[in-house]
């Protein structure tokens, strides 16, 4: 009985991992050799829509000045842009900073100050957005530093009436701070440069990542606005827009810099939060996506399901390891002798290697030649992620409806005078999720 269960478990794990391995290879080859679909990147002139840029902030005094300065320096038409920093119960001097900017730029900076209501990024965004009538709502986290042309680039896809959301690329700023930041730089490169762009090329499901991107106000209203009970409001809105027939667009050319976690504790907390939020979305929308009531193309359904499952894969992987250990101790011999050895060896070599191939290809495309040398250390990153995500994915909070969603903010490393310990330079990189 145990042997049968372990055998079935092992084959399921191998099958699931084989599917994701094939996905890695396919996306990487598409990104390398496929036709790049970047249909909106050449739009530089037009009747630009009105844009409201929301910057949710909770105790962000160390970084928010840089972000607001950068937003004010963008080349988006002044009469069509309003910047809405949303202060949600900060206990530092974030609020004073916002009021200072509002006094200096009263027409362009209109802070939204919260002292009550449900805490959390989604609730803050929902409340603030209900007070604004701009055509397009863009969102930047408070530590992000947009370049001068970024807002136009992100607004351009919305000239297409089918586009409901747009996502730009997130590039780590503090790459050289630690081994972890270097590994995250490689991971982000694989996630954005290859994964997101391949999905865009293939007409699959590029993911809106909650920052360096935005949504069309009418689309957001149509799908019911932000879910305040969601830990991953970005993934949640991606799927609701998808299932309402809206396009989500990824713009690889539209880069914005961010701080990535510099310590493993912060990283573990971050990825566990993503895992719990993502799994909630899986629970909420998997059934409807598979039933496919609006007849989405099959390729989008398959990609959507695979994307929903990414944070369950570590659980499957650990199940596979346990089954392999059980079978090893029970002395079960392969049924087909050398062919089984060949199959297992093939999977172990080529299969295990797929993610490294994707990351190396992405970094190489980025011109980050020498950074690829830390590739073997990604094993350590995978190990930590696997156990951290498995723990989050097996927790009750990963699958149950959330009642209280609070701010779970990633630690910032820059200091208020603008100096951080990051020494990144403008050739960094990006993973399907931002901070």
């Amino acid at each position, binding site marked *: 009985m145990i042997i049968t269960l372990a055998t079935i478990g092992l084959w399921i794990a191998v099958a699931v991992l084989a599917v994701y391995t094939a996905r890695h*290879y396919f996306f990487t*080859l598409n*990104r*390398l*050799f*496929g036709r*790049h679909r*970047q249909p909106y990147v050449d739009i530089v002139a037009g009747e630009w829509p009105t844009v409201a840029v929301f910057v949710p902030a909770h105790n962000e005094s160390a970084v928010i000045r840089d972000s607001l300065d950068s937003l004010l320096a963008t080349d988006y038409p002044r009469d069509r842009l309003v910047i809405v920093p949303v202060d949600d119960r900060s206990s530092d001097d974030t609020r004073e900073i916002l009021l200072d900017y509002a006094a200096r730029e009263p027409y362009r900076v209109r802070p939204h100050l919260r002292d009550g209501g449900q805490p959390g990024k989604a609730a803050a965004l929902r409340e603030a957005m209900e007070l604004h009538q701009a055509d397009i709502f863009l969102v930047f986290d408070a530590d992000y530093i947009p370049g001068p042309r970024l807002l136009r680039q992100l607004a351009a896809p919305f000239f297409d009436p089918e586009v409901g959301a747009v996502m730009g*690329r997130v590039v780590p700023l503090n790459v050289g701070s*630690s*081994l*972890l930041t270097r590994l995250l730089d490689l991971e982000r490169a694989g996630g954005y*440069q290859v994964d997101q*762009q391949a999905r865009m090329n293939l007409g699959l499901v590029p993911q809106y990542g909650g920052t360096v991107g935005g949504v069309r106000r009418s689309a957001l209203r149509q799908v019911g606005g932000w879910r305040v009970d969601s830990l991953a409001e970005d993934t949640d809105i991606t799927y609701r827009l998808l299932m309402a027939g809206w396009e989500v667009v990824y713009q*690889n*050319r539209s880069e914005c810099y961010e701080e990535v976690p510099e*310590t*493993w*504790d912060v990283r*573990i907390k971050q990825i566990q939060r993503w895992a719990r939020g993502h799994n909630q979305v899986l629970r909420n929308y998997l059934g409807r996506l598979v039933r496919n009531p609006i007849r989405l193309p099959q390729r989008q359904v398959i990609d959507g399901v695979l994307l929903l499952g990414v944070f369950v894969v570590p659980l499957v992987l650990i199940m596979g390891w346990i089954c*392999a*250990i059980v079978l*090893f*101790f*029970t*002395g079960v011999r392969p049924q087909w002798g*050398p062919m089984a*050895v*060949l199959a*297992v*060896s*093939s999977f*172990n*070599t*080529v299969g*295990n*290697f797929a993610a*490294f*191939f994707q990351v*190396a*290809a992405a*970094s*190489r*495309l*980025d*011109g980050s*030649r*020498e950074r*690829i*040398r830390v*590739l*073997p250390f*990604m*094993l*350590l*990153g995978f*190990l*930590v992620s696997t*156990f951290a995500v498995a723990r989050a994915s097996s927790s009750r909070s990963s699958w149950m409806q959330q009642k209280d969603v609070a701010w779970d903010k990633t630690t910032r490393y820059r200091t208020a005078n603008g100096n951080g310990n990051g020494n990144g330079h403008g*050739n960094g990189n990006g993973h399907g999720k931002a901070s």
Partner: protein
Amino acid sequence: MAAARNTPPGVDAALTDASRRGAAASAQRRQGVQGGRIAPHRSMIGLRASPSLLLDLIVLPAILLVTVFVLLEPLMEAWRAVMETLRGPLDLGTAINTVVVDLAPSVAVAVPVYNVEGMWPSNAQMIGSWVFTIVLAVVGATLRGGYVPLGYLLRALAIMQLASNVWFMLAEPPFPYALTVYGSGLLVTGVVILLLAPFLVGATFFVFDFPLHKKLGLSALLLGHLAVLFPLQATVHVWLIKNFSMIAMPMLFLIFGVLLDVFVYVALYGWAMSWRSGRELDATVRRPPVPSRRMRRVSSTA
């Protein structure tokens, strides 16, 4: 074709001229004021599939595979010589045996193998294994800061060893695997990996626009490294199991077996991917503004 027949005289030539001018203009758009090449943005860069790439993907791995096949027999002799040299000093049996393994119909390989028996763990070895497990777990749990990933690795090893301890406490001899079979299995897997390696390199490295000598260079590095590693890896495994009993086998097999071999490739691959290709892949790497030969040619024809 019908459209071509109806084309008025002179239009073909005009189209050709326009096409040439278009190509020249396109080339000039990528040329900097000092004659250097304006690098495309990294979001736009990609590679081109070409017949020569197809050859690289099919012919090179095939040549490497045939080479490995041809060298298998001398390689097995070399492995035997290495193992024979190490056998005496490490006290690994009285002779090196041979196991003939059929890899495929009419393809057999004579793999050398140590003739050593692994023992069921004694009480002292069981206690030693428990102490080892506890040390792994405690050290793994106490590592902080930048050592957190190492802590995760140690804890994973501790769980693996814990499973072994529990199994050997509850089970009765014999262990399902004889040490001779285990040792030969490692080397047979090594042979299979050597045969697969050309395809692995083909699928993951030959797809890029590296020059031929760099593609062959990584292949030679990988095959050479693995060819040296496998008999040494098998020797270390057999020596550890002989001296610390069969309780060491599960961790060695599951963690320090094929997984280790894969990471040899990951390490070499990471290094090789940092080499310059001299072609499209280097386009986003910052370079001094020196006009390329191709660019000079296009400029002069324009």
